[in-house]
């Protein structure tokens, strides 16, 4: 490289230069801006208790919500199966948004196609688009299965997927054998987790029914001792590796139903192959004969769980994301119960090491007031983790929390969990609220740490609290999803993330004399 020194400021330093400061000031004369005083007053007002009251009085407008729409989850679910191409039936822009959004989180490609419906399809229906789309996508991207979901456009006009796929077969565009699983995913119902569930159930029921196998739990000669495991709308590829590690320690056979860790953590080899890993299609009907199934997102996977316990007549243990020591203990108990195998010594030892780490760090965690945002199952896990280390959840927002499991509402379970510990006594649950509500909460009833996705960064900044990025989506940090947060190892990762943020804050806010070398 040339030794010549060149000054190339980035956007931070460039726009801090005096000439740009002047430019900003000068532009104002054309902006008809609010006076500085008005802005300062409005800012102060937005932080007030009076504003908070109005904010919580909102009936209609939603501001910075923490949820996405159904088909996003369906695309993720489809990518959990071997050589499966997600196909989004409806307007094409939706598909481009799903692909971008998932790729921004995982930093990986998201192959998915759309039927590109436009005005004429809105009038006449999207059958021709769907049929042409199947023909083209299969020719180009050579999937072994297509997994169809819908955008709200196709739902509003009432397109009939089943008959359209049937017509595609009659027209000879796809063979009778070529699998096309499908589900309806209106974006005006539920959220991304609903769409994940719809697609997973759609794929399992479709592949099962067409196989002709009749479910007989625990009967399969090869699959008899197999356990089915479902992680759900899982933003962490690292969690798949962790659950594998755990199941392998148990020395049990298992099938992960819906495993997108291959597609979302594929190697750079010099070639791109479109499809990586995923649950093998042939394993799906065999899964009907497993001893039992384990669901790690019980609020997400409602329809799928009902299908497995109903149609497959299989014992199913459903829990929320197994975070923390207690959460992981429950996971291991469940695996042990479903398989009849004892908890392996290696995991007990790992537990001890992680508990040891928790004892080392507890002084920095104890009594820390935290705000939590996330999907329902993640929140159950996070609340559990906070309580077991002495952190105090204070504000808990769940935009898509109007869900239940076994007739118990998420809110009631979360409240009971909080009530079970003295560290939960400060907490309030806000179901269906958004991050603009959270902003008021953080400003009016301050906390020490905010835990949630990248979308929480704005409220956290306004309140001046550090954000610990956990959940989906994480758009502004790299690789966090590659490290597990479940299991004992995940507990250690989470602990390390939180305690080191606390320690960073101590250094950042030091008073000179206490810029300590040892903490």
């Amino acid at each position, binding site marked *: *490289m040339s030794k*010549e020194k060149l000054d190339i400021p*980035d*956007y931070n330093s*460039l*726009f801090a230069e005096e000439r*740009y400061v002047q430019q*900003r000031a000068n*532009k104002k004369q*054309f902006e008809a*801006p*609010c006076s500085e005083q008005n*802005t300062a007053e*409005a800012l102060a007002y937005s932080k007030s208790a009076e504003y908070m009251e*109005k904010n919580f009085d*909102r009936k*209609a*407008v*939603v*501001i*910075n919500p923490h949820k*996405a*729409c159904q088909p996003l989850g369906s695309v993720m679910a489809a990518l959990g199966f071997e050589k499966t191409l997600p*196909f989004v039936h*409806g*307007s094409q*822009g939706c598909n*481009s*948004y799903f692909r*971008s*959004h998932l*790729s*921004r989180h995982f930093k990986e*490609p998201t192959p998915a196609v*759309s*039927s*590109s*419906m436009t*005005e004429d399809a809105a009038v006449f229906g999207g059958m021709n*688009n769907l049929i*042409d789309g199947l*023909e*083209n996508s*299969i020719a*180009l*991207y050579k999937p072994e299965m297509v997994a169809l979901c819908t955008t*709200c*456009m196709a739902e*509003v*006009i009432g397109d009939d997927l089943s008959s359209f796929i049937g017509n595609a077969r009659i027209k000879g565009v796809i063979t009778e054998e070529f699998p096309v699983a499908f589900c309806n995913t*209106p*974006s*005006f*119902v539920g*959220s991304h987790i609903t769409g994940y569930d719809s697609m997973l159930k759609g794929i399992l029921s479709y592949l099962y029914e067409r196989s002709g196998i009749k479910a007989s739990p625990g009967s399969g000669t090869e699959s008899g001792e197999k356990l089915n495991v479902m992680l759900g709308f899982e933003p962490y590829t690292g969690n798949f590796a962790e659950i594998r590690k755990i199941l392998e320690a148990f020395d049990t056979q298992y099938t992960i139903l819906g495993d997108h860790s291959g597609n979302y953590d594929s190697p*750079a080899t*010099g*070639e*791109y192959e479109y499809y990586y890993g995923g649950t093998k299609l042939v394993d799906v009907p065999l899964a009907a004969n497993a001893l039992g199934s384990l669901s790690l997102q019980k609020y997400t996977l409602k329809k799928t769980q009902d299908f497995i316990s109903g149609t497959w007549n299989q014992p199913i243990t459903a829990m929320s994301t197994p975070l923390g020591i207690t959460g992981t203990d429950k996971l291991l108990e469940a695996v042990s119960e479903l398989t009849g195998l004892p908890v392996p010594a290696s995991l007990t030892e790992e537990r001890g090491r992680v508990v040891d780490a928790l004892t080392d760090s507890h002084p920095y965690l104890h009594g820390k007031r935290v705000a939590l945002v996330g999907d329902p199952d993640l929140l159950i896990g996070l609340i559990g983790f906070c309580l077991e280390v002495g952190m105090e959840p204070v504000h808990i927002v769940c935009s898509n929390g109007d869900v239940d499991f076994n007739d118990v509402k998420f809110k009631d379970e979360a409240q009971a969990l909080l009530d079970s510990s003295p560290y939960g006594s400060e907490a309030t649950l806000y179901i269906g609220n958004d991050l603009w509500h959270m902003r008021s909460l953080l400003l009016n009833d301050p906390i020490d740490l905010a835990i949630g996705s990248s979308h929480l960064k704005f409220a956290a900044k*306004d309140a001046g609290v550090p954000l610990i990025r956990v959940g989906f989506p994480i758009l502004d940090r790299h690789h966090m999803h590659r490290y597990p947060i479940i299991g004992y190892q995940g507990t250690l990762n989470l602990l390390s993330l939180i305690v080191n943020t606390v320690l960073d804050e101590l250094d950042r806010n030091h008073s000179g004399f206490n810029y300590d070398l040892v903490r």
Partner: protein
Amino acid sequence: MGLNIEENKKLVEEVLEAYPKKAKKDREKHFQINTEEAQSCGTCALKSNIKSRPGVMTPRGCSYAGSKGVVWGPIKDMVHISHGPIGCGQYSWGTRRNYANGTLGIDNFTAMQITSDFQETDIVFGGDKKLEVIMREITEMFPLARGISVQSECPVGLIGDDIEAVSKKMSKELEMPIVPVRCEGFRGVSQSLGHHIANDAIRDFVLGKAELAETGPYDVNIIGDYNIGGDAWASRILLEEMGLRVIAQWSGDGTLNELEIAHKAKLNLIHCHRSMNYMVEHMEKAYDIPWMEYNFFGPTKTYESLRAIAARFDETIQENCEKMIARHQPEMDKIIHKFKPRLENKKVLLMIGGLRSRHTIGAYEDLGMDIVASGYEFAHKDDYEKTFPMMKEGTIIMDDPTAYELEELAQKLNVDLVGSGVKEKYVYHKMGVPFRQMHSWDYSGPYHGFDGFKIFAKDMDMTVNSPVWNLISKKEKAQKEGAGV
């Protein structure tokens, strides 16, 4: 290094072999190899701005993306309602990097997601009543908001809501401009119709509604600069340095007032012609304001554009312009001197929206790089007519290319750099092909103007010459014989 016309024709044919008959017939019309004839006659046969084939993995988005995401979203002192279900607003929340000064949530509402979050009942009973309540609540929550726009998502147009009536009524009640925008995602074939619809809404509801206290002979507008990574600021500074007065910035870091007073300018300067040509043409007809395109990517094009702009004004401006160029040129030369040897003859494939696939060519060429293929997501015929003369003979020009086509071409052409979007990015990382996101500047920027070119050059060097690519043990790639270059 020349590009081989016949070989590249053959190469494209080979790529399209994979398609079923009907789709192949369609896709053939979206490719053209540049020839002397195409360069000069300007009437290319290439088809554009027509429907994408279903199932091919088009890179295109929708009208909503063109209106909320591109044109309206950056207007910082208005609240833009993503009207419909939750997703559209969520995915377009803060992802475009159209920077704006101000206090977020107080007098700047750009990186926010404000939505009606349609539920099943809204689909069944309509969303108009809810929309009224939303507008009232917006004025309560955001007392400094200067106006509201309603960005329609698909269901709005399908269930027969009358957002125009609601907007009219509420505009009166709340005493602020409220702009209904019919940018439902199923309208049109890409983002492009959304730009047009958004432009029409500016024309019908906002333009000409305010006056400028004092006008001057040097008043100009910047049109079609979305301030990605600060682009508009890096452009404005040059115009101001040569003595012009920028009275409106559309729409990056823009305000409602700037939309309202733009008709007072003496000249419209348009950067992204594709997304805002409708407005400059309207202002020419309605207000006699002439307009001109300019290009601030790379020093060569920037000098050229600055001089062309100055030529529209008096000698003072022209002298200022020359002085300014003289002041910046040595530094630009230094940048080129440093980076050109590292980038010379590197082959680039571009596939961007409706402008940059041609507008950035000069910047690459300043660094000695060769564009071997270039395509647009949503360009129209006039864009291609401008593109062919800018490209070398033998360059592959493509319209709405699919993921499959791009991947095949990038490999067959053995390119050194691909410039496209986030949907494409990580595919090329797997392949070991250096890649820059050319919509968001890959979270860098600005790339406009002299300040921008420095960053552009550094970024291209960093990407093309990063040692990380050497860590990929590339499998032997079966290079098709005579792959055109």
